[in-house]
């Protein structure tokens, strides 16, 4: 069954079918040939159920807010301020994008929302500054995924609950690897900028900076709403997103008068289009992974590895590989729900620190969301940037290499994750 589903998928994928088709046809094949007893209406149930999680609301809301401020003045003003501060440093803009993605993703809890909210307004600036599009998109996608490791991290909560590991400890353990990756990306970005000789702007004078700051005063409310609102416990990420929509409307329609109220339905339409492109795949992906877990395919595959008596390091590496591969095809959270219970006895008997395992799994999940063929963040980038699939993934290999290097470092030096925890929680 695995072979049939997988080969169907790959053939349809390569032939250029719309991305939902490989998933639908593989799922239908599962139902027709392997669970003849089952009613295929389950596929519909799972497609519907897949797009219902409340946390997903953050995606259309951030898209809408980003859409409004990009058409209006807010995005430009915020970016002018950024340029005045870092424009004279080679690679400065790219490092800013990486850092913003990490922070925004950490706070919003949604990597897809990050790709949209940061990538949407920032990408044109990056292109204008002379960065390559492939580099820009890959940087945005991969930097957004660092957010999985920075608290609050939904992946770590899921792991903590499933494995009975302290979530607070996991949160702290994620920070080290998260910052390490950000540092690697930043260094890479600077090297890239030097090699490409990306032109720099003359250093802004004090008065220019002050002017930029003054112009960005109103739009500075956005980071305030998002960071202050969420960390301050005033609202959930999806609520913060909708408050951003409200604020964007107030600013652009009433303060700056750059967007007309009657343009809103049209903006909402374009938001819905981007949302639908991604959500159809989330829904179909849910049906696909349902078929996988119903047939217990992951269990079968993992049992075949005979890991029962393996050395702890082997177990850790196997777990990392399994999650990496799983996340290539299925939504990361779903992969966690399916695989963690399977690996749990092994984690317990191996004597590995469950916090280390959790950090490793979260890292793989972060990598997986940005790796082809099925990565939700790739889909989001395609939908929002309107570039073909291959263009979007062209720049990703160096980033994936850096992420894999981090995985190897984590196996060799678990202190990257555990040191901070041991210091803070003696």
């Amino acid at each position, binding site marked *: 069954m695995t072979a049939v589903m997988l080969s169907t998928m790959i053939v349809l994928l390569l032939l250029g079918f719309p991305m939902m088709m490989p998933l639908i046809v593989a799922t239908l094949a599962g139902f027709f040939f392997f669970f003849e*007893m*089952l*009613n295929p*209406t*389950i596929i519909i*149930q*799972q497609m519907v*159920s897949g797009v*219902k*999680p*409340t*946390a997903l609301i953050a995606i259309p809301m951030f898209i809408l807010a980003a859409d409004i401020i990009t058409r209006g003045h807010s995005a430009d003003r915020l970016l002018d301020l950024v340029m005045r501060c870092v424009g004279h440093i080679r690679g400065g803009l790219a490092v800013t994008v990486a850092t913003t993605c990490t922070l925004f993703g950490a706070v919003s*809890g949604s990597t897809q929302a990050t790709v949209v909210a940061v990538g949407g307004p920032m990408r044109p600036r990056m292109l204008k500054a002379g960065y390559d599009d492939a580099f820009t998109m890959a940087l945005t996608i991969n930097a957004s995924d660092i957010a999985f490791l920075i608290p*609050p991290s*939904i992946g770590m*909560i*899921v792991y*903590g*609950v*499933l*494995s*009975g590991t*302290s*979530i*607070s400890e996991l949160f702290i353990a994620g920070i080290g690897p998260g910052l390490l990756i950000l540092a690697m990306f930043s260094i890479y970005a600077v090297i890239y900028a030097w090699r490409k000789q990306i032109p720099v702007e003359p250093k802004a004078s004090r008065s220019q900076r002050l002017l930029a700051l003054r112009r960005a005063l109103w739009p500075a409310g956005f980071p305030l709403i998002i960071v202050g609102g*969420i*960390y*301050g*416990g*005033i*609202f*959930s990420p999806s609520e913060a997103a909708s408050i951003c929509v409200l604020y964007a409307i107030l600013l652009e329609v009433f303060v700056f008068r750059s967007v007309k109220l009657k343009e809103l339905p049209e903006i909402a339409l374009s938001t819905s289009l981007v949302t639908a492109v991604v959500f159809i795949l989330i829904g179909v992906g849910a049906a696909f992974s*349902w078929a996988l*877990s*119903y047939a*217990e395919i992951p269990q079968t595959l993992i049992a075949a590895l005979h890991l029962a008596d393996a050395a702890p390091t082997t177990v850790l590496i196997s777990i990392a590989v399994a999650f990496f591969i799983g996340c290539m095809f299925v939504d990361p959270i*779903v992969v966690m*729900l*399916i695989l963690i*219970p399977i690996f*749990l006895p092994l984690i317990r008997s191996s004597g590995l620190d469950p916090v280390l395992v959790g950090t490793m799994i979260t890292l793989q999940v972060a990598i997986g969301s940005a790796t082809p063929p099925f990565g939700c963040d790739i889909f989001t980038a395609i939908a929002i940037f309107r570039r073909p699939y291959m263009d979007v993934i062209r720049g990703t290999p160096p980033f994936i290499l850096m992420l894999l290097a981090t995985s190897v470092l984590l196996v060799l030096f678990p202190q990257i994750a555990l040191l901070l925890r041991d210091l803070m929680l003696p």
Partner: protein
Amino acid sequence: AGVQAETWKYSIEVSQGDIQDLYAQEFKKRIEQKTDGDVEVKIYYGGTLGTSADTTELAANGALQFANVSLGHLGSFVPEIQLFSIPFILSESNDVNKKLMTESKTVFEDMAPDFAKSGLRLMSIYSEGEDAWAANRAVRSPADLDNFKMRILVSPLQVEAFKDLGSSPTPLPFGEVYGALQLKVIDGVGNPISSIYQSKFFEVTDHLISARHQLFTSAIVTGEDWFGSLPPARQQLVQETLKEVSIHMMDEVPRLEEQFLAKILEEKPQMEYIRLNEAQRDLFRERAEKTRGKFVELVGDNGRQVLDNFLAEREQWEAQLN
């Protein structure tokens, strides 16, 4: 023993080691033994086959043989079952509750046609323990719940019940509760002590309050069609075994609650455990009277009948057993 075991798929809402898992394991052990290898029970953990609503539907479709879902989720299939969401509706006696949850005519016979209409059969109910509050604030009286954002399941009756108790009910998906408690978006959550431990809510709260206002009830449902297709002897075997397991679990739960409480207090010594006394509980009990009226309003004409019958049963068992 049969040559090829028949596989019964059984889904729970939570992860390994939770009370629902212990129940499932116990059922698996007993039924596999009784059927002498004819049947193998396969347990699917929370989320892998969908939400609680999904797995309930899957049971109705026959894709799963058994689904363990918390009773709060069954209200969309059979509104009358929200009876169990009314605070103080159950007895103070565990023995009486065992009877009510396994034998109540009001629930298992009178509601059966409604479940059957949804393709379901309600097999058994059991308690996962009291619904304790893991909270950012100490609560000793209804007044302490003023402006207290209590996480609830989405259901109109729960909204009413927690308004009546004095709090501001805030519906929130389970997955967001930990983060919301940590950032103090909500002030507390009501869950069995076992799940407060398992879901790590104790890490992000300072007070654990036992008001014993409600038991967290869980149900085993199966598909009406599938169950009907079993030979009568097998039907009876399944029914009996589930009843046995429910009674066994409800005998175990008080001990498990102690264990989980001890674990919480050991891992977080500064956690303040507040056990309300009878006088304090009475203040909450009075307020729950109103919720009964709201139940009747919500469910309609039938609601009054259901409520009266159930309370009569409770009284009858209380008289008989105490």
